[in-house]
């Protein structure tokens, strides 16, 4: 099977994109490593406080003119970006695989989902419209306008280096704001590529900036009085911290955190279609996503339980592991060795707690000649109980914890006992069971016969409990609300 060509050549140094210029950072330089080959593919700066301040200043200066640019004209910039993303679709997808390790199908899926947000933001002249009422009293009219606020910080995670900043940035700029994107320093090339296309699309300097780095950049954004709000996706502890800090500094905030999603399997499900859904849900992106299945909760008698689990285990045991640019590969590596060790720590904890390891991902074969440094195979634990660490905490790796419930009521209680509410799902052919699940389960996103409940760009990416801190969400109309302030005008003419 073909191994596709890598787009990142040599070991380029990533620059910041500030005020329409490519600027070399004065900060410390870190390696960017391709986790499948375990080789350095680039260098990324850990930018300084001065550099984030420079980006904020550039954005503040760009804001008045950008705000005055008409929504129709702003939409055309966004539309040019959308066309450029389509033109470079394959290249940006391969960049993701090279820097993150995910399979090429997963990367293309990420490109599509990210680009769809740019596409939706092209409709800003309609989306940003307010509303009005003539004659709220005789001769007096009232109307609402949605104003942009200024400068926003967008902090992206490592697991979807291309897509996640696009849940926010296109809406922010289309509504007339300026943005500073901070990509994950582990895989910064996707956002670098987007910035190149932003430049090619002709956005005015200062409207869309990229500052690479880590904690200093994030702190700089949180503390800077010139930043009006933050959109963040990452772990729950960090999301909580960002939510608190934004409260202290008076910024609006979207803080999306972690998850521990249950996939509830009812005995009346379509088994043949459900098994592949379990594969993609639990092991897609090597389990490194907040919508991954984590706990497989099987409802039904011993016979159904054994038969369903056997089918899943059989399919999972055949997953092809390797470098995602090999088109035959179904699961790539973990992003780095630290994440691999973290997963192994959870596996050890599961074994110690008495769960039965029926598929041991420590034993695996890699297709192709690649070092095993960041790779792991899939794990399946049986006899997992809700109190075990592997059932409660987000592992962010290819681990399936199997539990049982006697009926739907017990299953829903178990799901609702979870601290997270991100993307729980049910697999059933009963409309009644599906409705009951959707109605009673506390979760921002609910799947019915869907393994990965990823909302389309025109719906909000919701979240509840410890999976989300804030009010409005990324994507679609809610993102437009987040990036604008409502101004109400009441007028009469004498």
């Amino acid at each position, binding site marked *: 099977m073909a191994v596709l060509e890598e787009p990142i050549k040599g070991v380029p140094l990533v620059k910041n994109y500030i005020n329409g210029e490519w600027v070399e950072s004065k900060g410390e330089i870190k390696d960017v490593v391709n986790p499948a080959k375990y080789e350095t593919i680039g260098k990324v700066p850990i930018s300084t406080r001065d550099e984030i301040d420079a980006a904020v200043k550039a954005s503040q200066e760009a804001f008045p003119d950008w705000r005055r640019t008409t929504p129709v004209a702003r939409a055309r910039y966004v539309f040019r970006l959308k066309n450029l993303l389509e033109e470079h679709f394959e290249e940006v997808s391969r960049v993701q695989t090279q820097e993150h390790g995910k399979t090429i199908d997963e990367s293309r899926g990420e490109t599509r989902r990210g680009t769809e947000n740019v596409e939706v933001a092209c409709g800003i002249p309609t989306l940003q419209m307010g509303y009005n009422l003539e004659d709220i009293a005789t001769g007096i009219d009232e109307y609402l306008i949605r104003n942009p606020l200024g400068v926003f910080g967008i902090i992206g995670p490592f697991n979807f280096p291309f897509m996640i900043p696009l849940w926010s940035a296109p809406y922010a700029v289309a509504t007339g704001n300026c943005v500073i994107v901070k990509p994950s320093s582990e895989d910064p090339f996707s956002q670098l590529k987007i910035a190149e296309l932003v430049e090619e699309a002709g956005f005015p300097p200062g409207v869309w900036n990229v500052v690479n780095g880590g904690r200093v950049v994030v702190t700089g954004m949180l503390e800077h009085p010139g930043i009006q709000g933050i959109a963040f996706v990452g772990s729950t502890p960090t999301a909580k911290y960002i939510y608190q800090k934004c409260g202290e500094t008076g910024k609006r905030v979207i803080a999306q955190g972690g998850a521990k999603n249950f996939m509830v399997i009812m005995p009346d499900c379509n088994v043949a279609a459900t098994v592949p859904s379990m*594969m993609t849900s639990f092991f897609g992106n090597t389990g490194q996503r907040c919508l991954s299945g984590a706990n497989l909760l099987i409802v039904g008698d011993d016979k159904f339980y054994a038969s369903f689990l056997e089918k899943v285990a059989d399919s999972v045991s055949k997953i092809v*592991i390797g470098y995602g640019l090999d088109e*035959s590969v*179904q699961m790539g590596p973990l992003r780095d060795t630290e994440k691999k060790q973290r997963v192994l720590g959870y596996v050890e904890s599961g074994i110690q707690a008495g769960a039965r390891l029926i598929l041991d991902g420590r034993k695996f074969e890699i*297709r192709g000649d690649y070092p095993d440094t960041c790779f792991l195979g899939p794990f399946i634990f049986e006899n997992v109980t809700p109190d075990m660490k592997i059932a409660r905490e987000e592992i962010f790796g290819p681990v399936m914890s199997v539990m049982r419930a006697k009926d739907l009521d017990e299953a829903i209680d178990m799901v609702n006992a979870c601290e997270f509410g991100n993307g729980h799902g049910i697999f059933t052919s009963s409309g009644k069971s599906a409705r009951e699940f959707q109605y009673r389960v506390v979760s921002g996103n609910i799947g019915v016969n869907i393994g990965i409940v990823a909302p389309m760009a025109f719906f909000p990416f919701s979240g509840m409990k410890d999976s989300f801190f804030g009010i409005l969400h990324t994507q679609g109309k809610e993102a437009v609300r987040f990036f604008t302030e409502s101004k109400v005008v009441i007028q009469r003419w004498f």
Partner: protein
Amino acid sequence: MGGNDMRLQTASSVISFARELEGESAKFYEALAEKFAEGKDSFLSLAQENRKYIVQVERAYYGVISDAIEGCFAFDLEPGDYALETTLAESAGYAGALSQAVRMEETLVRFYTDAAKQSESLMADVPRAFMLIVRKRNERLVKLKSL
């Protein structure tokens, strides 16, 4: 652990395989057009259609691929089951060449039908694009058999 070496299990590998099959069969029709003046226009138009089919398939795939569908786990096809015989024997006459084309089309119909069946409900618009090609190819088979 690890699947069979040669099987097509990911959407990307299936799309690449479809691209290869369409390319091979287009070349076959171009060779027929060169050799048999009586069917030249028909064969060239079939070769052109093949290229449209692959565009259709790619458009469907790139349009819907996302993490919400089972891109890495929707298929399990053995490429050897769909090997095309596209070398035309020197001695082959017009009738023989047409029979070979019919066999090739039947194999392609089988490939797209199997791929559509396996990915039905897992790959959104992709199986529908496959079945549209099956329909067109069945029409093509009728036409080839009538020549």
